[in-house]
């Protein structure tokens, strides 16, 4: 349990650093650290598949992509828009209300019986595969349409059109 609290503290600490860091590059580096602590959380919960996916896809691929994008676009301090005070206030207010709702509901629900996993090894790759190809086969198959659509769209948006577009559409 003490490991959990330590890692949870680190997650919150790094995520605060993400939003408070001045330079966007630092911010992303802290985000990588935050995701790394999530990976440890998944391992603590015996969800090894999620841990590996989180490590490879989120930390490895997506955030490195983020970093490259940031280096390509020019993000200087003067080009960053200063948000008005009211917007900041509204954001803090809204997020604060959401936090109060979540914390209070979590606090109240501690007394009732939590949902107990029937199989504590559910997060292992073997068991996940069994669930995915048995109960959840249809969503798994239908997601292929999602990927195909995204792929076609990415190619469509990225290819250069030789034709000049007409103005009146």
């Amino acid at each position, binding site marked *: 349990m003490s490991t959990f609290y330590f890692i949870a503290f680190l997650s919150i600490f790094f995520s605060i650093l993400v939003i408070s860091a001045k330079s966007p590059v630092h911010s992303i580096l802290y985000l990588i650290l935050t995701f790394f602590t999530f990976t440890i959380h998944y391992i603590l919960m015996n969800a090894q598949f999620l841990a590996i996916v989180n490590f490879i896809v989120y930390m490895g691929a997506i955030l490195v992509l983020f970093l490259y994008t940031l280096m390509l676009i020019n993000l200087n301090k003067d080009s960053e828009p200063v948000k008005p005070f009211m917007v900041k206030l509204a954001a803090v207010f809204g997020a604060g209300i959401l936090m109060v*709702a*979540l914390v*209070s*509901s*979590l606090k*109240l*629900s501690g007394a*009732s019986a939590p*949902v107990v996993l029937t199989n504590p090894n559910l997060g292992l790759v073997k068991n996940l595969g069994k669930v995915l190809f*048995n*109960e*959840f*086969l*249809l*969503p798994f198959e*239908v*997601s292929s*349409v*999602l990927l*195909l*659509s*995204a792929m*076609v*769209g990415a*190619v*469509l*948006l990225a*290819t250069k*059109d*030789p*034709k000049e*577009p*007409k*103005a*009146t*559409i």
Partner: protein
Amino acid sequence: MNTLIIISVLPIVLLYLGLYKAQKALLPVTIVGMLVALGAAVMQWNDNAQPIYHGMMLFNNFSIAFSVVSIISTILILMLSKGYFEKISSHIAEYYAIILFSLVGIVVMVSYHNLTMLFVGIEIMSVSLYILAGIRKNDFASNESALKYFLMGAFSTGFLLFGITLIYGASGSFDLDGIRDYVLSHSHNIDPIFYTGVLLIIVGLCFKVGAAPFHFWTPDVYEGAPSLITAYMSTVVKAAGFAAFLRLFSASFSSIAAFWSPVLMVITIITLFIGNITALYQQSFKRMLAFSSISHAGYLMFAIVALGAASANAVFVYATAYSIASIIAFGALVLVRQQTGSDNVDGFNGLARKNPFLAFVLTVSMLSLAGIPLTAGFIGKFYMFSGALLQYKYIMVIVAVVNAIISIFYYFRVIIAMYFRSAERSEVLIPAYYKFVLGFSALVTIAIGVYPALISSLI
């Protein structure tokens, strides 16, 4: 289920047709394929559907009715697209394919029986729409619209997913029946997490259907996207969003209506006022339609706030009437815009003298959107309001009637521009496809308005 398979395979066929440069065959193949899918859906009518694939999908009459409306509206919009996408780029097969992919998502959304399917359906639809909003690559407004839609959509999906997770955490089930059983068996000690989950799902779904205060993306996205894509987004997508909304709330959360109906009531009233009052100030016809679509989302919410046995029917009638009338409006906008080059309401000045047919169908559409009797829009509003009155929600109905009166002002501005303003203009050429779609839609609008029993007792 056959409908889903046919619509999933069709875009792949289209991509191959595009590969072999069969540009002429694209539209006919699409329409024939969709008609086959339509037939497959109608064949399953009254089939005593049971949840299939481990309770993932339930293709009952509700799903069939909404699938049929979505498919018909998509066919009408695709007919308007003849010669439209060619102006944007030479890769038109991909456009048809992506529109059909999003239709796959919509069919999933109206027939899910498990929250994972709801999520997958919404994502398939949204990802396709992000791309479609940005297909005019060299146009700044289109880029802005796609990026804005993508960022806002991804954000709202986060809320939806969080809500689904919390509900799973409380009830231990993704299945609609499982959640309903949890609510019924724990009616006195429902986890507070469950309520938080319901609220987050409301936020996520209101984002998707564009209800205030989560409507900020709607005007910019609708204005920047190409007109036909806007037509698709504001008709088919909105109807499917409400079908998904209604299905979840009537199947699973109906016994805790006392908890969420005040929230939705406030959202409805805000949506109505924001949509209608902002639409008053718009000079651009397209932007006016965007705000009017927000206000129509408010009317559609009535069926969910006053949840009852007739809700499904009311949403069905209203969504049909609204979709068909909007298709006419956007079709007319595309034609007029090709001539005048702007979206302004002034572009419609004096249209009646040169194009009496176009002016007439657009008048029918505006009357239907405003809810004047003898059009389908009146019938839709009638069912919505009578459902709310059955549950003694007088204040909501009064607010809605006031808003309907406000909306008459901006809808009639178009009619006045067409009939009573004069301007030097030449005749707008209307292709045969457009004539068919506009005439058919106007006919259906009047037919439903005069004889509502055609569709009003289907579900």
